[in-house]
């Protein structure tokens, strides 16, 4: 019974468990954050970030090809609720980015949105895998705490990372956790699949 439930879980979340897919986007976020941090004043030459983004796109296509060739393709059943919530998340992230740029409040709105994303994906996708759910909740708590630090008087935690502002701090952390999480998910995915008959 448990192995059947496990098979169902794997089939339902097959593309999400292919963690290497998250690495190109996370790397893109990371390197563009570092590039943005190195700029003095408004950026005039966008050649480098565009090239970096293209490099990450090529990397993603290679990862996609690897998974399709080695593990096959599973098309997920995407529910309306999932599409609706993803759209809401994207709109909130954009609004939070604009809000943080305008310094509406001392609380980092982008950090709170990232925290919500970690908590939501934890409950939505990874409830059956307690370790992943717990990891998501810990990350959500960390991002939420970092978001409200300026309110309690710690105003520049991002300075410890050598960054200019909270937006860069959160995107850098999101990128780093994206890369680490991608590797963990990939290892979990590969180890969760039954061994091929020849090897078992």
């Amino acid at each position, binding site marked *: 019974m448990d*192995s*059947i439930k496990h*098979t*169902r*879980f*794997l*089939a*339902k979340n*097959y593309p999400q468990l292919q963690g290497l897919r998250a690495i190109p986007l996370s790397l893109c976020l990371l390197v563009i954050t570092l590039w943005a941090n190195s700029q003095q004043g408004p950026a005039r030459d966008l050649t480098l970030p565009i090239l970096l983004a293209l490099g990450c796109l090529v990397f993603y296509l290679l990862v996609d090809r690897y998974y*399709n060739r080695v*593990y*096959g*393709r*599973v*098309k*997920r*059943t995407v529910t309306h609720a999932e599409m609706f919530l993803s759209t809401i998340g994207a709109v909130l992230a954009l609004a939070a980015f604009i809000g943080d740029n305008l310094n509406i409040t001392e609380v980092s709105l982008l950090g709170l949105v990232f925290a919500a994303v970690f908590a939501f994906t934890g409950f939505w996708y990874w409830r059956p895998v307690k370790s992943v759910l717990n990891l998501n909740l810990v990350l959500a708590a960390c991002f939420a705490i970092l978001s409200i630090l300026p309110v309690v008087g710690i105003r520049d935690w991002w300075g410890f990372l050598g960054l200019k502002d909270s937006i860069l701090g959160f995107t850098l952390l999101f990128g780093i956790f994206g890369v680490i999480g991608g590797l963990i998910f990939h290892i979990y995915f590969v180890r969760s*699949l*039954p*061994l*091929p*008959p020849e090897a*078992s």
Partner: protein
Amino acid sequence: MSSVFAEIAALDKLLHEPARLSLMTALSACKSADFLALQRLTGLTSGNLSVHLSKLEESGLVVMEKQFVDKRPNTQVQITEKGRQVIENHWRQLENLRRDAQNWRPD
């Protein structure tokens, strides 16, 4: 207890075979999957997988579509509406059986 035996005997033999049950469960959890993914998910050899999928297709529980992806042959497998109803009904029967077995008390 005889009713439990009757319930067990009434289970769909086609679905109750472990490999086919595993395949149908996997297919009911997604929109479609290709041959390689099903092989990875179930750990079956390609020969075994082929035989089981053919039986499920003959019964109208799945549909298979052969195509070329990146110049390579690719078989997409999708559960039918009938297949979805049959596997859900089968799971319900199994859950009922389990519950009956747990609640059974000697007379």
